[in-house]
């Protein structure tokens, strides 16, 4: 994981990123507002000055006449000491008087009364705010139109604008800081349960598998439930393992105790014939024990979830024939009829040859052990299936699931270890095949069927 990739930072970044353009927008809005407010406030000066000049415009000697009030000009300059310009023009736009020939304004007249127009103009390299007042003489008969143009430089407006903007920026900055602080606190508190969960997991004894029990928000509660399910599975697995180890040690202890007892009994006698009998018996027992240990070993290996052997293409017919070849001699000695019925064409699947051999060995062994007289191996092509049918006593339907568990024997006191079917079951699972036990065709005996999935070919 690269540095900085944390939920906290990710949340903070995604929440703060939209705040940036928003803040920019607010600053821009504040600037526009401040400028507008400053202009509106100062435009009142232009309005008042132009009004007070307009009031002094008269008609005298057949022309426009103005007794300019100096106060009207003083009005246009604030503390910022703006430059001030004014002019009076007649209805034809002819300059009558003033200190600057200010430009006119193209915009039209107002509906009623005096027309007042404000705008920024560039004049001789200066930026001025100009107010134009169009008015008319209110004489008894004369209705002469005229226009007063007043303008001043923008220093006062800019100063007021900056003052307003500074105040607004301080406000926006305070809001931004508050928003960031709230965000940080909110994200921290939202992520606090995660920290709590982490601490709770870290503080646990690694051997305990008890469920986690701490109050968490919904999203994390799901995680907690998942963890608890995992823990429950682990608990079951461990219980299984413990039972398996218990059973295994019990299974191993019995023949070992028998060996020990037999040896002890034989040693009390001096007769070599007795010794020989004992040794023969001990050899049989130790052979059985060795086989048991091997089965335990292969079961442990098969049940190891980390063990994932490579599947290779093979032909079930070959497997069945090989198994018959391996067991034919021993069966023949015990007068058991071992046969194979192969499908006409090869039944191809992907699998592990030695495991399938092991499964067939176990099934043939079992059948022999439980007194079958005839054993038939069969392969079917669709779906790929491997069957072992015997005419032994069979297994009642109620116990068919139980016999798949390790150390469960079909009949108490039999000489099997009770691992055979469990091993077959594990192999079936490793191949993704279904293991079914069913009755033989004539109501007795047992058919063990391994049905592989079609995709496995």
């Amino acid at each position, binding site marked *: 994981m690269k540095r900085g990739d944390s939920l906290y930072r990710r949340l903070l970044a995604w929440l703060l990123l939209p705040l940036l353009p928003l803040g920019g927008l607010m600053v821009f809005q504040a600037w526009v507002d401040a400028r507008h407010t400053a202009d509106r406030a100062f435009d009142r000066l232009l309005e008042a000055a132009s009004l007070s000049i307009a009031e002094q415009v008269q008609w005298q000697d057949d022309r426009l006449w103005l*007794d300019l009030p100096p106060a009207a*000009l003083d009005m246009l300059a604030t503390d910022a000491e703006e430059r001030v310009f004014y002019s*009076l023009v007649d209805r034809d736009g002819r300059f*009558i008087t003033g200190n*600057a020939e200010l430009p006119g304004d193209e915009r039209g007249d107002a509906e009623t009364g005096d027309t007042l127009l404000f705008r920024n103009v560039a004049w001789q390299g200066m930026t001025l705010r100009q107010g134009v007042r169009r008015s008319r003489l209110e004489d008894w008969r004369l209705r002469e139109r005229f226009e007063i143009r007043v303008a001043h430089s923008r220093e006062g407006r800019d100063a007021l604008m900056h003052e307003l903007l500074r105040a607004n920026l301080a406000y926006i900055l305070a809001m931004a800081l508050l928003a960031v602080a709230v965000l940080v606190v909110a994200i921290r508190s939202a992520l606090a349960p995660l920290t709590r969960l982490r601490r709770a997991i870290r503080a646990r004894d690694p051997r305990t598998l008890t469920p986690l029990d701490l109050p968490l928000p919904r999203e994390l509660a799901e995680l907690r439930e998942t963890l608890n399910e995992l823990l429950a599975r682990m608990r079951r697995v461990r219980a299984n393992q413990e039972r398996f180890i218990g059973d295994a040690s019990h299974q191993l202890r019995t023949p070992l105790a028998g060996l020990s007892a037999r040896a002890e009994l034989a040693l009390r006698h001096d007769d070599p014939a007795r010794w020989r009998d004992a040794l023969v018996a001990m050899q049989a027992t130790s052979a059985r024990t060795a086989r048991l240990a091997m089965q335990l070993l292969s079961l442990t290996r098969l049940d190891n979830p980390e063990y994932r052997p490579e599947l290779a293409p093979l032909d079930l017919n070959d497997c069945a024939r090989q198994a018959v070849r391996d067991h034919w001699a021993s069966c023949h000695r015990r007068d058991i009829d071992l046969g194979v019925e192969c499908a006409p064409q090869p039944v191809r699947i992907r699998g592990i040859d030695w495991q399938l051999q092991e499964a067939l060995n176990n099934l043939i062994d079992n059948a022999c052990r439980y007194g079958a007289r005839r054993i038939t191996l069969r392969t079917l092509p669709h779906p790929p299936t491997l069957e072992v049918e015997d005419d032994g006593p069979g297994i009642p339907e109620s116990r068919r699931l139980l016999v798949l568990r390790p150390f469960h024997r079909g009949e108490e006191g039999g000489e099997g270890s009770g691992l055979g079917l469990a091993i077959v079951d594990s192999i079936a699972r490793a191949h993704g095949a279904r293991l079914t036990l069913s009755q033989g065709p004539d109501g007795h005996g047992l058919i063990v069927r391994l049905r592989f999935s079609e995709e496995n070919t």
Partner: protein
Amino acid sequence: MIRPLRWCLLALWSLTASAEETLHYPAEPVAGPPQPLVVHAALDLPQARPLLKAFHRRHPHIDLTYRNLTTLELHQRFLDAPDAADVVLSSAMPWQYHLANDGHAQPLSGDVARGWPAWARWRDELFAFTFEPIVMVVHRDLIERFGDVRSHGDMLELLTEHADALAGRIVTYDPVRSGAGYTYAIEESRLSPRYWDLVSAMGRARTVLADTTGEMLDGLEEGRYLLGYNLLGSYVRDAVADHPELVMVVPDDYALVTQRLAFIPRQAPHPESATLFMAFLLSEAGQQVIAEQTHLGAMHPALSGPGTADALREEVGDALRPISIGPGLLATLDRLKRDSLLARWRREFQREVPPLRLAP
């Protein structure tokens, strides 16, 4: 169309008719590389010389050229060649303000500019560096016969009661022919509506109208006039010192104060020298020279004693009304405003005078 009028108005301003006078202070070779400085001013040499001398003593590496012009020539020359002068000094306040308002002046930075009183500067571009009250000059004969004249109120009373006795013995500026007189008239009419009563009383007393302070002082010294109204204080001091029968009166109800304005043109060829000169003009040392060696009136806030604004303020209290340096000055230059004001002035002046007796 406004210009010709301004010219004739300005022509009327001149206090004394004078041809171009030039002073030149060459740079001292030992003081380092010479730095030229050209000052164009409407300030007579006797007043300017001590100031220039003191400046040159302080900055001997400056090659100083001083041209004394009439206010009209000064204005004309500036508009013809805005890059000729480094510093422009003039007593014609409206014209100086007009130039600065149109953006012809460059701002002066530094502590000197910032420390200058706000009411005596405009935008750090235009600086008032003198403080000259507009005064009355009273002949002792008049005081003996009619009593003290200390204010505009006293004068109005005197003119109302003794109009016939004083006929032809009062003198003041002709606002029609004198730019300064017109400026005072417009300022006084703004200060008080009773000004028009005074004008009409002066008309009744058949007051003589003069063009310059010098002309009025001549008549007063010769004894032709008993009272001169609205004379420039800085010129009166010398005359009063020489003629003990004359008394200078700073009116204690209100007294206009005119100020000379200085600025550095935006296109000044030697702005560094100009800045040095302005800094000296507004410094305590420069103002000290103005206070001690001229009659212009120093106005540095730290200075007090004879020849300073501070002393004048102590003398007449808060009656001093400096002409404010602001857009109101632009009204003075308005053609129609002038026509209106002078029409009113004539009307008031001739109101109670029978037309026959007005004929010269």
